[in-house]
């Protein structure tokens, strides 16, 4: 039996603030979450996004950030963890300072999972983790295997060696003399040169409509489709035509039984890497055409890795509820090779009520979810 799947709670910690409302308000206002990070001074990359509300020097910072987002989502939903599953990604291991202290991502997940019911699944598909966790939770709830799950991810990778590592892979934007740190990440812009790493956590309570109804909880939005795919192409770059991304979006559409014309806005992965943005734009053109409003959060909050898909889903939900698509911060001169209906400069009132949110992981794992305004 197939169940309708709804979202009944959200929690978000991002460089724009420690609540979903702060994230949304910051996006609409065009605020910058990316700043020059003092502890990175002297490196080739000093821009990044910090969650300022949480102490920066804790080795268990990933767990603290994740717990806060999860608790906020559970509180809004009115659920308790013991009767709820957890599908979560905690990005990579955490290292701090000298002498170096190391904490594994798996240990973080195990601590988070201890108070939850079943299933408890640690999702690990790089930048697609948050979206894949939501999609997998959606599948479990829709198939009736579980009534509710918390899904999402957290990330505290804004450390020296991850910056060095991603810089070596030509993924992060190195500093440029005279350019403010908040301009580092420019998704789809002709002058883009990579992303800004950021910390964050995003959590969603994903629940069957029957379960929410029994509890008397009004859904925030509805999840209607999920698709995933693998590029099978290269460890560091997608194919230029975005073939894997096309498959993920087409599978999400097929899963939702919706046609491309039903999609009224795209919450893009939009990292600001040269090849990634071209591949994504090509994929969106192929599946949805060039006339659907497209927005990326990463110019404003940076790349929060395992949290990215969850934070983006939370922004997509706000679009479904309000009809407003936030602008892609720092997008000034759209690249001709990324020709789309970009939302630039200011939020756009579109009336959109159905949004696809996509994530494409390094290594080639792709995930797409379709969210819709809830109508009973």
């Amino acid at each position, binding site marked *: 039996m197939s169940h309708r799947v709804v979202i009944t709670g959200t929690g978000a910690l991002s460089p724009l603030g420690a609540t979903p409302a702060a994230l949304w308000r910051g996006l609409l206002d065009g605020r910058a979450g990316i700043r020059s990070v003092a502890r990175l001074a002297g490196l080739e990359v000093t821009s990044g996004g910090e969650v300022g509300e949480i102490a920066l020097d804790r080795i268990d910072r990933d767990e603290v950030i994740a717990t806060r987002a999860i608790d906020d989502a559970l509180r809004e939903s009115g659920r308790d963890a013991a009767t709820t599953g957890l599908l979560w990604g905690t990005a990579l291991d955490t290292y701090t300072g*000298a002498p*170096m202290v190391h904490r594994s*991502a798996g240990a973080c997940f195990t601590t988070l999972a201890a108070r939850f019911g079943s299933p408890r699944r640690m999702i690990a598909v790089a930048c697609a983790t948050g979206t894949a966790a939501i999609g997998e939770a959606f599948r479990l709830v829709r198939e009736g295997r579980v009534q509710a799950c918390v899904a999402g991810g957290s990330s505290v990778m804004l450390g020296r060696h991850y910056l*060095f590592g991603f810089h070596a892979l030509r993924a992060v934007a190195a500093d440029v003399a005279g350019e403010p740190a908040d301009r580092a990440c420019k998704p789809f812009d002709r002058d883009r040169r990579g992303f800004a790493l950021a910390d964050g956590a995003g959590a969603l309570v994903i629940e069957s409509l029957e379960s929410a109804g029994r509890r008397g909880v009004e859904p925030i939005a509805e999840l209607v489709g999920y698709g995933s795919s*693998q590029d099978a192409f290269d460890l560091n770059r997608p194919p230029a035509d975005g073939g894997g991304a096309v498959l993920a979006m087409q599978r999400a559409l097929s899963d939702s039984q919706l046609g491309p014309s039903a999609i009224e806005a795209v919450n893009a992965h939009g990292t600001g890497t040269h090849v990634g943005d071209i591949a994504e734009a090509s994929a969106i053109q192929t599946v949805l055409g060039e006339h659907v409003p497209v927005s990326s959060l990463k110019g404003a909050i940076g790349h929060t890795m395992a949290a990215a898909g969850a934070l983006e889903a939370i922004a997509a939900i706000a679009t479904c509820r309000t009809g407003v698509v936030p602008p892609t911060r720092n997008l000034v001169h759209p690249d001709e090779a990324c020709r789309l209906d970009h939302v630039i400069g200011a939020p756009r009132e579109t009336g959109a009520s159905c949004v696809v949110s996509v994530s494409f992981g390094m*290594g080639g794992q792709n995930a797409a979810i379709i969210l819709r305004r809830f109508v009973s």
Partner: protein
Amino acid sequence: MTWLVASAERTEIGAVRDGAPALWRELRRYNAPVQLAVAAAHEVVAHARLPAEAALVSLAPCQAGSPDLHRWVRAVEEGSAQRMNPTHTLHSVDNLGLSVLAIALGNHAWGLGLGGAPGMFWVALELTCERSEPEVIVFGGDQGSGYDGTDPEGVALLFSREPAPHASLGRTVKLVGIERRRATGPRAVIANAAAGARSMLAILGDQPPGELAYRVPAMHGDGIDDLVVTWELG
């Protein structure tokens, strides 16, 4: 219902390097758990009907990284290095094995990486039961410590919706299901992505025909649940 039709275990890097030079050229850049996991996966892939369409479930190492990676991390964190080798950066990536195998197989199908928390192998078996693809490949690797790379191991299992005897055991091995019960208290575990699978595979060949309720040793579980895997052996 799904049948375990092939399984493979690898513990010797040298055997991969010397015994499969073409594969080694593909794997030599990666860390030992990924090398052995993917090498094991290639063994079971030889028994798959349509490996490019199989669902893939990878298990990230619980003991992540490599000696090379940790040397870089220490140097960077202590301020004595200003760059990192991009190849060694990949050793920190938890979906590396999944990406490497998908590329090798030209596989665009559903695939999922499970992170390096204890007990994820049993989640992989649950996913195997949930998926509808004709074949599912579960694979993962680990090591005693990411700092010194000791005791690396890799394991892979090929499941099929079509009943068929296990390639090396010569008998049918049907996965019936996985049952979880909350343990009465926390359980001490060994955080290792491959050890639990290898321990279970070791006994499948010796059991009499019929139903086998395999009680997962607490040390191979997730520290939260007691787990029973039910098999039907031909």
